């Protein structure tokens, strides 16, 4: 794999994860548990889709086969998607929605914090912009995990269930593959060991404060999203998200 190929792959992972989680959050538009929560969820989704566009635009320039950001988002099938499995998991109850968000935000925060110093200027610029937004996301989702975990008996039970349901998808966030290692060597991506340590440290701290118990670090983990092997949920998300562009390719007026 050349460095350019690795970078393209890496950009698509960042873009796809942002895009899919943004799409998931938007499913709550019109039916979030409270008006303020709805605005917050849609704001977070908007940030993520905006960030996805920035990563897609750069990826499209590197791929250079005539496809633009929209085509990368709306005309690739599930096996070409490189998003983390965590991001495609269903919203379920609010504990799962916020638990998923917290695990992702913690990974996103440390990843972007490292990308800000990337040797690639374009990556550094996009990351600097995104990091400000994601810092806000992380603060909010960590507060929700604490509030639900250290809340009532019922909210604690549900938040603990959410941690247990989602945990098997978190290994992928901190398990590097060849692309991750090539990016770290090129001075672009984060050092995998550092990322793992930072993520685990913060997650454990927040879960402890929330009176929640994490699963063991060596628990069995699902991997594969980064190589296009997804859970059954992704196909359904894409079917809904891509419908218009598939039915009316290149339509510019709805």
């Amino acid at each position, binding site marked *: 794999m050349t460095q350019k190929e690795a970078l393209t792959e890496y950009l698509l992972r960042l873009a796809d994860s942002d895009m899919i989680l943004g799409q998931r959050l938007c499913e709550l538009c019109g039916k979030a548990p409270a008006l*303020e*929560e709805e*605005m*917050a969820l*849609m*704001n*977070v989704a*908007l*940030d*993520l*889709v*905006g*960030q996805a*566009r*920035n990563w897609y635009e750069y990826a499209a320039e590197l791929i250079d086969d005539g496809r633009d950001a929209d085509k990368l988002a709306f005309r690739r099938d599930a096996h070409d998607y490189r998003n983390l499995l965590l991001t495609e998991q269903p919203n379920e109850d609010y504990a799962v929605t916020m638990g998923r968000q917290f695990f992702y935000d913690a990974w996103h*925060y440390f990843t972007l914090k490292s990308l800000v110093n990337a040797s690639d*200027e374009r990556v*550094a*610029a*996009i990351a*600097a*912009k*995104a990091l*400000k*937004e994601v*810092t*806000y996301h*992380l*603060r*909010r989702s*960590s507060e929700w995990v604490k509030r639900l975990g250290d809340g009532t008996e019922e909210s604690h039970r549900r938040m603990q269930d959410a941690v247990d349901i989602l945990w098997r998808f978190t290994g992928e966030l901190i398990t590097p593959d060849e692309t991750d290692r090539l990016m770290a060597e090129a001075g672009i991506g984060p050092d995998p060991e550092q990322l793992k340590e930072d993520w685990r440290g913060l997650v454990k701290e927040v879960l402890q404060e929330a009176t929640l118990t994490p699963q063991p670090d060596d628990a069995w983990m699902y991997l594969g999203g980064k190589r296009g092997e997804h859970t059954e949920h992704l196909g359904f998300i894409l079917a809904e998200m891509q419908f218009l562009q598939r039915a009316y390719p290149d339509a510019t007026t709805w």
Partner: protein
Amino acid sequence: MPQHGDTDPRSAVDKLIASDRVPADARTDQLTEADIWAILDEVKDPEVPAVSVVELGIVRAVHWDGKELSVDVTPTYSGCPATELIEELIEEALRAAGFRNPRIKQVLTPAWTTDWITDEGREKLRAFGIAPPQGSASKRSLLGESEVITCPHCGSTNTERVSEFGSTACKALYRCKDCLEPFDYFKCI
């Protein structure tokens, strides 16, 4: 017909229509960079019409050599849906002032923060009913302690946060416990 460079890709009809929009006496070659900043200062933010795109710090730079004009703009948030509209409004204002081919370029570095909002912009936000960002974004840290936000209506600091996110990505929702009015707070990022 005014002279266009050979590189102008527009059709003859488009060029004709564009030239018709320009007042006959518009002479951009006499305008200075300061004049251009003044024109841009008339372009209001579509979400917060009380402040201009210059006061919000969205316009980064103006490059003008007497013939070619390009303007650097930066988005406030990665996903701000107003970004494209703002770019169109800026281009429209410049064309109306006589510039035939203004180029609007999006720049990401240095990233926009609320520190880019001018003092005048902050005062106009307050008068409009939006609490301006308090303090410096660069001093904020992750999971920072909550700030004291002043109510833009009555000036009380006895306020509470209702939601981390408000009516747009750049705002949070607050409520004043003295005058009981809800208000938007321009988030400090």
